């Protein structure tokens, strides 16, 4: 059974003039199934892409797997011993501090106060050493060859001075109660969340007096274009003159239009500006000459930068510039003055650690680094702060209360903005600053914070392929169980995180629901095949009987019509898949059309991203290429069984 039946099935499906109705029904069936396949593929691919994007966004900041201490850990002697030990400054330690601590057991029976009776007894190894669950877990994770790092969450009041010269927000102060998440330099995905510094950031850093050294900024950016509103006289070409205007009352200032046709306010005197060596002057060709006027451009003049000579002060920096004014090429070495950078490339990715690190967050071989160019601690803000006028280089303080023996003291840590990140979907994302670990530890030592979204304030993040995290979880769980450390830790994947659980459950429900609908639509579409094949069987009754007379088995006859269904299913799958690939490749056009039709954005960027994902989902493809031919085959079975039951003696006699 095989080739022969397949050949006959192909022959039967080729449309013939004689059987026009069969050909039409068969064409209709293929079109309907192809449409369903197209719809299923496009929808499943886009939703799978959206889910993947969300997963990446969620797990980039918060690792897809997390180990958090259990009640057992917090009640253990190991954790509580620091509170009564002089070695530990009588303060409880975070997981990171525990991992770095030289003493597993800081308690000294001679110098420290007596351990309360109600404390659990210390867990010890057979050689008497205190069991160190943190260090042992870190060693175990290292053996498992996964990326991991401890994290801490605290809270503080952020007060930030906004320096960006904007008319409404100049010298404003921003005050906001914020959560602080420790910066995890081991996070391999964090780099994808960093928002590159903008030109506004660069101009703010350059214009800010408090900004870190010019050297670190200019060593890590290439300025290729600036805009100036005052013209260095040395830029006026010799032996030529430019049209310029002076006000009768303000004779020491000349205004120069960028274009000869540019209109000038009434009452200004038109003349020409010329230079002869170090002397420049304005004249109206009658008798009025103004020597060395200051020159302002009517609108900002764009100059391309070819060379830059560093100096201690920004205003002393020398730039080799070129440009065009009034169709005249200009070129000279000028001082920075009040230039504004309009085009520059700021380096954020490095192959090796830069000799002079930039004052913004940067990436060396995929790992992110916070700048350490000044004595002030750098930190990152969610990208929404940009809209409030915050720029890289802005400085401020993190304020928190420290409870002493007799009073509550206000503590401050000086901080500087080093960049912005995309918090994705994270309930406290809009208010979560990423700060160096030293800050979270300092605050943690004074007060315990509870995060509002259920994220434990201290734990270990473990990174890896999010889709394989269930396996990694089992692997870690088994290792912890084997070493007796499981009671200290709670292991949770992104599917269990409070802030993402419901979203992913919803994604899963949506997908299951659509899959069920897709199967239903496919079944309905494949039912067309039943009608087609019933027609075909009626049409070919005599031929079936002839084949039976020549020795075709019932199974062979059934197989011919089963193959007919299968071929139609496979053909429709191929056509539908090709259409889906074309659609996905031109998804922006489809979305644009839908948006025009609706009069507003068809898919909100906040949820779906800037553009819809257009990768063909392999899972959807697998589903289509299994489900469609299978359903078509099943649909073909009913007419096939009917065909196999034809009695040749009756069919032949009727002829």
């Amino acid at each position, binding site marked *: 059974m095989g080739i*022969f039946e397949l050949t006959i099935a192909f*022959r039967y499906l080729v449309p*013939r003039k004689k059987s026009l109705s069969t050909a039409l029904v068969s064409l209709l069936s293929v079109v309907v199934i192809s449409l369903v396949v197209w719809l299923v593929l496009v929808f499943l691919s886009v939703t799978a892409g959206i889910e993947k994007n969300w997963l990446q966004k969620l797990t980039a900041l918060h690792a897809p797997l997390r180990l958090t201490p259990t009640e057992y850990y917090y009640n253990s002697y190991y954790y509580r011993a620091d509170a009564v030990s002089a070695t530990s400054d009588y303060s409880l330690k975070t997981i990171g501090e525990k991992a770095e601590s030289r003493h597993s057991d800081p308690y000294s029976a001679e110098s420290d106060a007596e351990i309360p009776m109600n404390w659990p007894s210390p867990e010890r190894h057979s050689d008497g050493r205190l069991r160190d669950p943190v260090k042992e877990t870190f060693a175990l994770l290292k053996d498992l060859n996964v990326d991991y790092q401890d994290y801490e969450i605290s809270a503080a009041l952020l007060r930030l001075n906004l320096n960006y010269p904007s008319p409404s927000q100049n010298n404003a102060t921003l005050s906001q109660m914020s959560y602080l998440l420790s910066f995890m330099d081991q996070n391999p995905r964090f780099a994808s969340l960093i928002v590159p510094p903008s030109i506004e950031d660069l101009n703010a850093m350059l214009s800010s007096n408090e900004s870190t050294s010019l050297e670190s900024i200019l060593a890590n950016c290439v300025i290729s274009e600036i805009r100036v509103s005052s013209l260095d006289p040395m830029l006026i070409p010799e032996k030529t003159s430019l049209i310029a205007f002076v006000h009768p009352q303000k004779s020491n200032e000349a205004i120069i239009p960028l274009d000869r046709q540019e209109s000038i306010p009434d009452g200004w005197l038109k003349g020409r500006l010329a230079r002869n060596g170090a002397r420049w002057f304005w004249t109206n060709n009658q008798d009025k000459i103004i020597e060395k006027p200051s020159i302002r451009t009517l609108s900002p003049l764009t100059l391309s930068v070819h060379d830059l000579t560093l100096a201690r002060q920004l205003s002393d920096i020398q730039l080799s510039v070129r440009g065009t004014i009034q169709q005249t090429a200009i070129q000279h070495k000028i001082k920075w003055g009040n230039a504004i950078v309009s085009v520059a490339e700021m380096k954020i990715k490095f192959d090796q650690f830069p000799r002079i690190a930039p004052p913004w967050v940067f990436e060396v071989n995929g790992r992110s680094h916070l700048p350490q160019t000044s004595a002030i601690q750098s930190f990152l803000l969610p990208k929404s702060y940009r809209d409030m006028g915050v720029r890289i280089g802005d400085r401020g303080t993190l304020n928190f209360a420290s409870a002493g023996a007799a009073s509550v003291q206000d503590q401050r840590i000086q901080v500087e903005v080093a960049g912005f990140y995309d918090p994705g979907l994270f309930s406290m994302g809009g208010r979560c600053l990423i700060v160096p670990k030293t800050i979270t530890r300092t605050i943690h030592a004074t007060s315990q914070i509870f995060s509002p979204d259920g994220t434990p304030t201290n734990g270990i993040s473990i990174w890896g392929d999010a889709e394989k995290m269930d396996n990694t979880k089992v692997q870690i769980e088994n290792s912890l169980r084997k070493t007796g450390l499981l009671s200290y830790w709670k292991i949770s994947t992104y599917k269990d995180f409070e802030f993402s659980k419901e979203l992913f459950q919803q994604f899963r429900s949506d997908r299951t629901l659509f899959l069920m609908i897709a199967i239903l639509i496919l079944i309905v579409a494949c039912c067309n095949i039943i009608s087609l094949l019933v027609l075909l069987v009626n049409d070919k009754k*005599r*031929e079936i*009987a*002839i*084949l*039976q*007379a*020549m*020795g*075709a*088995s*019932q199974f*062979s006859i059934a197989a011919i019509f089963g193959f007919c269904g299968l071929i139609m299913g496979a053909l429709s799958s191929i056509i539908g898949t090709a259409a889906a690939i074309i659609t996905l490749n031109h998804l922006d056009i489809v979305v644009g059309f839908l948006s025009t039709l609706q009069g507003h954005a068809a898919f909100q960027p906040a949820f779906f991203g800037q553009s819809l994902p257009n990768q063909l989902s392999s899972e959807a493809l697998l589903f289509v290429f299994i489900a469609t031919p299978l359903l078509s085959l099943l649909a073909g079975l009913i007419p096939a069984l009917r065909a196999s039951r034809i*009695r*040749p*003696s009756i069919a*032949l*006699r009727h*002829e």
Partner: protein
Amino acid sequence: MTILEAKHIKKSFYDPKRMEVLSDISLTLSAGESIAICGRSGEGKTTLLHILGTLEAPDFGTLAIGNHPVNFRNAHRIRQQCIGFIFQSFNLLEDFSVLDNVLMPARLARQPTDKNSPAHQNAIANLLEVDLADRAHTLAKFLSGGERQRVAIARALCNDPFLILADEPSGNLDHANAGRIGQLLMHCVKAKNKSLILVTHDHNLASLCDRQYLLKDGVLS
């Protein structure tokens, strides 16, 4: 050697009343022997031929072909290997070529049918015998009645069966063609030493067979 042995075959139809077509038919056929079954229309000649050709099951009685008792399971295999059919209305596959039609039984028997295969060469030889080798690639639907029946004879000989069942082979042909087809059929059967059961009205054709039977009132005489 006995090729076919039918014992006490009975068959009735319900239309709507029960109507016994075959009452008690017993028949034996030896290798190389040819028999003709004559009778008036509606006497059950074709029914008997279909039963003997395993296309239809009898209500009662047994049938053995080539010493194999026929049952539901092996009927198609027996048709494939032991029997060649020739029908009154030719029953060719219209959208297939002459050669495809002739090779169809070999394909159903899963024999290789490429150009150098024995089945292909046998088909060409059979087409030469029926004088249609030059029309091997013509579609069956473009042939005349006489040509169609010649293709049917070549097809019936394809798998080299030992039994040929012919149902009024000349019934749909004009007098001249009928004579030619009859001669050709008898020639092929004798030349290849096949056994033949021929159902016909044509007494001339029937007279060419070794034995003649008359089917009347459901009984062979």
